[in-house]
């Protein structure tokens, strides 16, 4: 347990009564028990009474001056037996009775009494099991304004002030007017509890403190906790010695009385020294709360002499501060709400864009409102479907990708935020002007898709009121002593590698966008699934349909041909040659129609069917085709020569079709040539395998080259040959599905070569 002893006014050391020896460092200040100092300030008197019998349990030592009795004689006496100057204890007793009857005695503070011809205020409160009574002199610096007026003035100030800074300035001016302090400041806590002076009203001759920062250790944690419950504290004169409360220990407890709510409470000698180092003679501070937490303080300093602000004035100042706190809440809330609403609007707009475009990248980057408008970032990057898109001011792609990698391995969470990236990820030092602040959303870990926002470094020049590091001194006897700061000269520090932090609402909006985006992606995936299924069904229907149509067209055709043949068989010997010729034409017409139907079926099948790629031995395939073709060409002088035949990778059915069509064309269009020669040859080069089919037939006029591969297009020269202009269209379709090419060269009536090439895998 730590024991706090006063040795002299300048230094304090902590004696350890326990074996455990914590090292002395600046955090010890945090543990000083300031709520039971055991002392009050000298300008008033304090009694701690039994709340029922009003027996005196504790009294401040200076009461012996007023009562003429030593304190140990007073303790244990009923207050009614007391005589305070010319104020009978019985009067006090009556006052207390009335006050206690009301239930909460502090509701009627202060109570006026007269002692030795002067006005005094009595303040009562119940705490720590006792009824605590404090006496303070009444109004030397009296309040001239009635409360009502004060409230009205303050409220109209609040309404009239345009922004937060204006409001704070008006407030400190009003408090200065009310209390007469030399300097009144609004002190605002930042992150990690260091403070900044954001508004100031001061006497002309004083150095301004506006804009200075003070380290968190200047107002230690337990002080801040106390300030949340006791909203106004004052130190009347730093030079006056403190007055002890006797007896030292309160009741059966091993500690002094708890003075959390006391106006006379003496402060830590460390704090006194701190004020003296600053040249301050008298001080007062009022808490400013925002949503139940300490937002800042109104700090008052007086230099020219002690300054006593009586209870009613303090209460008035507290009232002004409470109005300010409320206004703060409203104003901050308003600002937050407006900002939040704007972000939500933008988020909705972005979602609508993505929906309308049915595309995430488009929706987020290609419209007037972009992902950059979702917060106050200066750059945004989207890694989606394998591509990195950036807008605004961002690091380079080569810098962003490793960063994403690092973040995704550092955290499994769906969102990552920092406002000091270079401190976490050293490579970011190089691009800290663009990305000291990063907010990243993980869209899909499997697909490696992320959305990031960037914020630039904010080089802040922070002015400190003195060096923020409190020195720890080693005394002569080797004891370690803490000493409050002696130096208050301005000290500037550059805060590097930091950006403005991300606001709550910015992160929330980003998360909302992620939800909407993921829903869209999932809908898209579903839609594609549905479309694929529909397509599959459509193909199946088409397949079934095609077969039915083909069958239904060919069946009557077959009847026509068959009956015509039967007629010829039965009546042929009775018919003239001319008549037989007519029937022949009927038969030939049905043949043509059959071929046409078959060709069209083949063509449509080539587009639909799945491609099965296999290695194909070309020599056997070509040999067989040659045999089949030549079987129908009896009586002709025709040779089909097969040269080198490198193997191919392709769909067997389709490959057969290609060469069948090319070869049958070669055979067909050489029919008029006495010695028909067809050559099939294949060779490989670096990136493809090329086959050629050459014939010495009628050839193709280049002027008609455009029609050669078109469906149903036939050349003039070919009209005397059977065919429907489907064969080469099929070849072209098949080659395109194999990612190959087909082309030709021709000299009419001499030679024609068709080439097909296949990419080498």
């Amino acid at each position: 347990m730590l024991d706090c002893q006063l040795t002299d006014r300048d230094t304090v050391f902590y004696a350890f009564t326990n074996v455990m020896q914590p090292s002395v460092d600046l955090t010890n200040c945090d543990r000083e028990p300031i709520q039971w100092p055991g002392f009050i300030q000298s300008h008033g008197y304090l009694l701690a009474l039994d709340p029922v019998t009003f027996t005196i349990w504790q009294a401040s030592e200076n009461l012996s001056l007023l009562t003429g009795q030593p304190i140990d004689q007073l303790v244990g006496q009923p207050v009614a037996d007391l005589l305070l100057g010319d104020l009978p204890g019985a009067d006090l007793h009556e006052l207390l009775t009335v006050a206690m009857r009301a239930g909460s005695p502090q509701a009627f503070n202060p109570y006026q009494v007269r002692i030795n011809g002067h006005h005094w205020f009595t303040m009562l409160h119940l705490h720590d099991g006792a009824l605590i009574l404090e006496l303070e002199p009444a109004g030397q610096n009296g309040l001239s304004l009635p409360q009502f007026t004060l409230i009205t003035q303050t409220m109209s100030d609040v309404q009239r002030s345009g922004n937060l800074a204006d409001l704070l300035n008006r407030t400190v001016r009003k408090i200065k007017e009310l209390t007469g302090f030399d300097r009144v400041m609004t002190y605002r806590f930042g992150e990690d509890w260091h403070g900044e002076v954001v508004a100031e009203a001061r006497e002309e001759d004083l150095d301004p403190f506006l804009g200075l920062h003070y380290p968190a250790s200047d107002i230690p944690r337990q002080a801040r906790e106390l300030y949340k419950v006791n909203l106004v504290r004052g130190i009347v004169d730093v030079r006056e010695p403190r007055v002890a409360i006797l007896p030292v220990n309160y009741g059966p407890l091993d500690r002094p009385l708890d003075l959390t709510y006391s106006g006379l409470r003496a402060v830590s000698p460390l704090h006194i020294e701190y004020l003296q180092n600053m040249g301050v003679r008298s001080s007062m501070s009022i808490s400013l709360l925002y949503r139940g937490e300490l937002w800042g303080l109104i700090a008052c300093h007086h230099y020219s002499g002690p300054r006593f602000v009586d209870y009613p004035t303090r209460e008035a100042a507290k009232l002004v501060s409470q109005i300010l706190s409320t206004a703060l809440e409203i104003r901050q809330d308003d600002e937050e709400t407006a900002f939040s609403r704007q972000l939500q609007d933008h988020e909705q707009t972005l979602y609508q864009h993505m929906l309308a475009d049915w595309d995430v990248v488009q929706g987020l980057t290609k419209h007037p409102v972009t992902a950059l408008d979702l917060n106050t970032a200066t750059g945004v990057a989207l890694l989606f479907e394998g591509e990195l898109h950036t807008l605004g001011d961002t690091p380079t792609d080569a810098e962003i990708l490793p960063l994403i990698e690092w973040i995704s391995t550092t955290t499994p969470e769906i969102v990552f935020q920092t406002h000091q990236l270079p401190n976490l990820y050293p490579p970011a030092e190089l691009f800290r002007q663009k990305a000291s602040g990063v907010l990243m959303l993980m869209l899909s870990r499997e697909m490696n898709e992320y959305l990031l926002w960037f914020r630039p470094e904010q080089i802040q020049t922070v002015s400190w009121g003195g060096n923020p590091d409190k020195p720890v001194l080693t005394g002569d006897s080797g004891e370690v002593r803490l000493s409050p700061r002696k130096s208050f000269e301005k000290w500037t520090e550059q805060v590097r590698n930091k950006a403005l932090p991300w606001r709550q609402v910015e992160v929330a909006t980003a998360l909302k966008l992620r939800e909407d985006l993921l829903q869209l992606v999932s809908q898209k995936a579903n839609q594609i699934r549905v479309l694929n299924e529909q397509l599959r069904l459509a193909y199946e229907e088409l397949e079934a349909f095609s077969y039915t149509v083909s069958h239904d067209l060919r069946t009557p055709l077959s009847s026509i041909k068959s009956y015509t043949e039967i007629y010829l068989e039965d009546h042929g010997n009775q018919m003239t040659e001319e008549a037989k010729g007519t029937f022949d034409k009927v038969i030939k017409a049905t043949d043509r129609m059959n071929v046409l139907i078959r060709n069209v079926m083949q063509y449509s099948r080539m587009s639909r069917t799945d491609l099965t790629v296999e290695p194909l031995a070309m020599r056997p395939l070509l040999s067989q085709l040659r045999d089949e073709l030549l079987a129908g060409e009896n009586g002709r002088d025709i040779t089909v020569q097969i040269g080198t035949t490198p193997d191919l990778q392709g769909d067997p059915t389709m490959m057969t079709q290609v060469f069948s069509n090319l070869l049958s064309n070669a055979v067909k269009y050489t029919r008029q040539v006495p010695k028909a020669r067809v050559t099939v040859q294949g060779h490989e080069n670096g990136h493809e395998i090329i086959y050629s089919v050459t014939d010495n037939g009628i050839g193709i006029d280049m002027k008609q080259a455009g029609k050669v591969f078109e469906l149903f297009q036939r050349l003039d020269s070919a009209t005397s040959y059977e065919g429907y202009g489907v064969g080469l269209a099929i070849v072209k379709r098949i080659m395109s599905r194999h990612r190959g090419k087909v082309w030709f060269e021709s000299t009419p009536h001499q030679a024609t070569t068709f080439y097909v090439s296949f990419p080498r895998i």
Partner: protein
Amino acid sequence: MLDILYVEDNQDEADIFRRVMNRLTNPPSFTILTSGSEAIDYLLQQGIYQGQSPPLPRLALIDLNLPGHSGFEVIQQVRAMSRTRYLPLVVYSTSDNPKDIRRAYDLGANAYLIKPGSYHEVTDMMRRAVDFWLTQSQYMP
């Protein structure tokens, strides 16, 4: 004793078949049924043929595209009965769809013939088929 059972719903085809059969050197005996359902009843001796004992053919020629039960169903049901398990079933269809061919064989057809589009070709094909199945291939009574 019946040589051929031909299951075919197209009148022209049936007509041409009759003519072709009757012009063969040794015309086989044949019956033509026009639906798959009737063919099943006949071969399994059920339905309208219940109680009768129509003669089993030595060869059944079956079109696939039939009203009611399809040619596939005929094959399937016929193969399921022990009486007709070894009956030579030859599909005679216009379809050249590899899926149909495969399915026919999977169900137990012995052969698959694609109908030619002309009288003369039909004549050739039938002559060869009759020669093969009725004369050369051994019969399982």
